[in-house]
């Protein structure tokens, strides 16, 4: 991937006006190059093909492979796909419609993008400005971190698996038939991850379990980061008594070992999926709140905030338009780290038998069966744990990549 990223520059400069050598940045001479051949446009109906012909290899391969992946799922699981199409269940409805929508989106995007590439006459200055916006620079730098990019691919793959679970799982994850014959079968071609005490196929359960783990992780972090950001910016911006009260609340929550607090809340409220998300979110916003408060405290002394106040912007706009966006990049990094932590916490709670309750499979509660069975039949715990670990690892690597890419201290140094 990273090799592609590096190769991208010379390839790009074949396009109209994009990326002349850095350093001549200020030159306003609008270099107008001839647009590439519009005759390529019909090829765009196969997503990615026209991009490849135009030399936009990265985008081309992405479109092509994503389309092929979706088509492969449809072809290989044709029966499940057609059954799922007429099934009244929401899971199937989402999975089948997702495939169709994604395929349509690929074709549409491919066509429109090629249309843009073959007609547009970017002038050089605009192209340079676009290529050097902090966002673009961050993306480019992220692309150079091989591990982080690989992690991102793994995460996307896992989310795809989660969405398409009903189409990918070879068996019904909850079906219990003839447990005496099918229980505790080791991994084989019929049952990739083996079977559990009720003879359920563990691979299918793992595929469905991905939904719980990934959804809980992402949503809980969303809750935590949103709440922590609002809480911290209120404390930091208004200061005084409010700051004091809010931060003492944070002190109290930080002093309680998070997992004890989780245990208590989940146990007392007998959490379902939604409650679990809220509980996880509301036990882990404190770090974000403290951090944002610190950032806001230093930001609010800066001139641009003074200017914003001077022109009479209401507090609401100063906070949400000017302060929070400037403090958000490191929050993004810690959010990626938190997703891993949340997924681990959910798995831990489910392992204890108080998080996600059976029959709904989650990677954690697949390991919550009797201790003796877990220790005797190694495959029961091995595979969910491997999936869990690789997901958490991927999010941690992603966070590392984001940290390097978004670090404002080094952001501009290498590219501008």
């Amino acid at each position: 991937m990273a090799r592609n990223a590096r190769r991208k520059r010379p390839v790009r400069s074949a396009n109209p006006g994009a990326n002349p050598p850095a350093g001549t940045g200020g030159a306003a001479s609008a270099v107008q190059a001839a647009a590439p051949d519009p005759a390529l446009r019909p090829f765009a109906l196969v997503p990615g093909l026209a991009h490849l012909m135009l030399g936009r290899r990265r985008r081309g391969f992405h479109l092509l492979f994503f389309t092929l992946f979706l088509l492969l799922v449809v072809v290989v699981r044709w029966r499940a796909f057609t059954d799922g199409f007429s099934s009244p269940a929401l899971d199937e409805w989402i999975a089948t419609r997702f495939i169709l929508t994604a395929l349509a989106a690929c074709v549409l995007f491919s066509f429109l993008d090629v249309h843009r590439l073959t007609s547009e006459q970017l002038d050089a200055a605009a192209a340079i400005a676009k290529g050097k916006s902090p966002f673009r620079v961050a993306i480019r730098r992220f692309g150079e971190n091989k591990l982080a990019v690989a992690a991102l691919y793994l995460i996307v793959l896992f989310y795809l698996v989660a969405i398409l679970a009903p189409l990918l799982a070879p068996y019904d994850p909850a079906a219990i038939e003839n447990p005496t014959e099918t229980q505790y079968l080791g991994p084989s071609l019929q049952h990739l991850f083996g079977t559990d005490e009720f003879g359920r196929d563990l691979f299918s359960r793992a595929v469905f379990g991905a939904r719980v783990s990934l959804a809980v992780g992402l949503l809980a972090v969303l809750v935590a980061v949103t709440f922590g950001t609002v809480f911290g910016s209120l404390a930091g911006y208004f200061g005084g008594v409010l700051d004091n009260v809010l931060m003492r609340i944070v002190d109290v929550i930080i002093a309680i070992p998070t997992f004890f607090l989780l245990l208590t809340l989940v146990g007392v409220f007998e959490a379902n999926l939604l409650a679990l998300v809220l509980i996880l979110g509301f036990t882990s916003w404190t770090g974000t709140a403290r951090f944002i408060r610190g950032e806001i405290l230093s930001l609010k002394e800066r001139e641009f905030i003074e200017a914003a106040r001077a022109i009479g912007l209401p507090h609401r706009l100063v906070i949400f338009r000017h302060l929070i966006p400037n403090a958000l990049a490191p929050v993004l990094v810690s959010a990626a780290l938190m997703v891993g932590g949340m997924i681990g916490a959910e798995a831990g709670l489910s392992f204890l038998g108080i998080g996600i309750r059976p029959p709904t499979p989650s990677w954690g509660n697949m390991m919550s069966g009797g201790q003796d069975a877990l220790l005797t039949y190694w495959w029961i715990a091995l595979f969910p744990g491997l999936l869990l670990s690789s997901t958490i690892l991927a999010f941690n690597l992603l966070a590392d990549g984001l940290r390097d890419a978004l670090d404002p201290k080094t952001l501009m140094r290498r590219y501008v």
Partner: protein
Amino acid sequence: MARFFAKRILQAVPLLFGIATLTFFIIHLAPGDPMDMYLEPRMQRQMDPEVIELIRQKYGLDQPVHVQYVKWLGNLAQGDLGESFRHRRPVASLIAERVPYTLQLAILALLFDALVGIALGIFSAVKQYSLVDKGVTVGSLVIYSVPGFWLALMLVIVFSVNLGWFPTSQTRSLDYEFLSLAGKIGDRLWHLVLPVFVLGVAQAAGTARYMRNRLLEVLSEEYVVAARARGLRERTVILKHALRNAMIPILTIYGMSLPFLLGGAVLIEKVFAWPGLGLLGVEAVGGRDYPVIMATMMMGAVLVILGNLMADVTYAIVDPRISLDGKKRTA
């Protein structure tokens, strides 16, 4: 020193008060009758409603919430944590019985963390970009990402079930009472190996990463260059000049990592059937044993506050620039 302690303990009081308040309201927000806090729901169903009403009055449950809250705080201040449903005995004695087991795990894990984590961190910083350094960097990230309870399960499967090197669970063998003193100590340590390793290794991974980065930072400082210029041995430069300065923030990290350590201990205790605070909490949640749930949460917080206090004290001892009394020290 005494003044510092007094100040810190006074600071801890409102914190504990806040935690107690939070605990009280979490339990009172719980769906269902607050009566469940005092008497198991299963018991209530078999009892005469009049008797239940009497008990309600006895515990003051017929009074408004704020009165109950003040009363509960009063009991708490006197060390009365109530009585466990499951165990039919005062929660305080139950906790006192369980805390040492958790402390054993936590302290040994921290020791493991300090020895292994810091050593690996130093090694990988000194030999930057070597094979060992790369191994430590990648390995620590992987270990850091693996859920502790799963690692525990895997280690038990490999080392206890298949190889038979270590016991699968519990704190002592069945024939513990018949062993000699040395045998007893050995037996206890033998049972501690796996849980301490699992708990400590994740911590050590974090420490190694942090230590490496800190030491690399410190090694580029001018006083390190100066020490080298004076012709000191590299060993002295690193161990005496760089390390002491790199160590200081590590202590804060230790103080902050305590909540995570105790949290991780919950799952590890469950896997190893280790009768600590965490397992008590898990059992209490499973059995809806409200007084015990509240007490474990309070106790966990007390341990965290104590840990932070200790981190601060060590911090001041290690770093002569910081004084406990707030007075400026002269060099």
